[in-house]
């Protein structure tokens, strides 16, 4: 059984592409385009790695990160962002996210956290 990855991003195309790539690497991938649904899933089940887009409607990535880590402080969360110095990215890092991934995503970091 491969490690489990959860991806939360409101852009379905990006979500599909990331899912395709990470699945091909041998990991189990679950995706959510609705941040709240994704947040609930992350709290409900265990994932080895969670990727969260920082800018989403209704509920941003920082809020989702904060909520997940409140319930699961050991969760490994990486934030997808176009701008590493974006204030929401900073807030997510402050909340406990491990790293920022430049959008669409960074293979090396994903593999690094899954294999490290």
């Amino acid at each position, binding site marked *: 059984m491969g490690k489990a990855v959860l991806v939360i991003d409101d852009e379905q*195309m990006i979500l*599909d*592409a*990331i899912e*395709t*790539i990470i699945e*091909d*690497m041998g990991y189990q991938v679950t995706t959510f385009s609705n941040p709240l649904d994704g947040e609930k899933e992350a709290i409900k089940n265990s994932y080895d790695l969670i990727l969260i887009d920082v800018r989403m409607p209704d509920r941003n990535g920082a809020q989702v990160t904060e909520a997940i880590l409140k319930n699961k402080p050991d969760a*490994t969360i990486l*934030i997808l962002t176009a*701008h*590493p*110095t974006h204030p929401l*990215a*900073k807030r997510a*890092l*402050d909340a406990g*996210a*491990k*790293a*920022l991934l430049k959008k*669409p*995503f*960074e*293979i*090396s*970091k994903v*593999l*690094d*956290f899954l*294999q490290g």
Partner: protein
Amino acid sequence: MKRSKDFATEDLIQFSEQILEDVSAIETIADTSPDQAEETISSAIRERFIASIEESVETDGYLELTISEDEMRVEASFYPPSEGRKPIDLYEVEHLLQSKGIVYGIDWDAIKQAIHSCNTDWAPITDVLIASGATPVNEVSEHLEIEEKLLQTAKNIDLDSIRVDFKQRSPFVLVKKGEVLAHRFQRREGIQGSTVLGKVIPYNEEKIPTIEPGKHSEWEEDCVVAGCDGRFEYNNRSFWVNEVLQIESDIDYRTGNIDFPGDVLISGQIKDGFSVKSGGSVFCNTTMDASEVISEKNLIVRLGLIGRKKGAVKVGGSIRAKFIENCYVEAKDSITVDVGILNSAVHSGNKVELKEKGLIIGGTIHAQNGVVATQLGTEMGPKTEIYCGTNFSVEQKLQWIRDKSMQLAFKLKQVERKLQNDPLEKKKLADIQQKLKRALHTLNEASTSLLFKLDRNEKAEIVVRDRVFPGVYIEICHVSYIVSHSMRNVSFHLDKKMGKIVTEPLSLRTRGV
């Protein structure tokens, strides 16, 4: 035409004597009666007139000779005889040549041919070269001669070609190690010459300036070859190969693009659109406007390194500059800067180190083994990102793979959707789906193997001697940190156990770095 003049003098004397003879005839008859004198004169004139007519009408074949002033050529004109008179023969020519003292270089074949033509065709044959002198051959001492092609100062331009890329022209003659630079010419004995009159012309000793092989040249049998790759240079005493290409001017249409196997020393500017490639190090005495600079070893810029659009500086060794501004820079080894790095993309396989007043403002710095600076970012300045702990070259490859993987993944999703909606093209679509999946898998395998080459340095450290401003992004071994408040005298490093970046006040030891 000394000899020709002599003939004219002889003719003049002969003609004068004839007149004198005629005059003397008149003198002898001066005492006779006028009628007798008149008769004598008239008779004499008539006789001479008749004789001259007879002479002009009926002559034997004859030839005229002209000896050149330098006595190196004899030309002859052959005239046919009058009807019934004796044609010119070889004996007569031989006799005439002998009488004139012509003994050397006689072309008997040419003479025989001319006699034959003259007597057969019954027409004058003029200006036939019948004897030639021999010029002496000078004695030449043993010497070296530089290869002709190396004496050119610029590459040949094909004027017939439609376009000439003057950027590709170079005034420098570049040679490869082992390339022949000069040949040895053995001593040549002198040979005496001779005039057609048999006068010996002595030979001279030809003075060929001695030219000696110099630096980075080696003897190889009868040749001198290049001892290394470099620029061929020479003067009137010596020739050599210079490992350093020194350019006093700007790099522009006068120099063309520079592609040199050794070190390059530039005193001027690199003009927009021109490139410098060096198999050694590049030294720039002033500010370097870098369009494209590639150096296999180091790059040392006395002043600043300023980038141009699409310009890039790629160095196999280290870089040293006073400042770097708006420039894309890659160095496999360390990058040392005195004053600052501004709005640049700087990549180092080792450390990026700024001296006492060194600031990093804007842009991205990727330094595998860490960064040392006095200031990072500014109060309101542009975004500054620092990445440490991984090999930038592998990261770039992974980024390329990421882009391609995304493209493949997008296409794969489109094909899969189409497969559901278009059963008619099922086979074709299934084929392409399989191909896309295979390609994506290949890329993912490449990513996984590249990951081992990231060469992590978890001890990579970012040291700030003075102040780091809020908003600066820091990443060590893929772990992120954004500076939230201004800090002084601080270092950033990775706490592996906690999996996050932590700050520490600079110890006295590191403050002096």
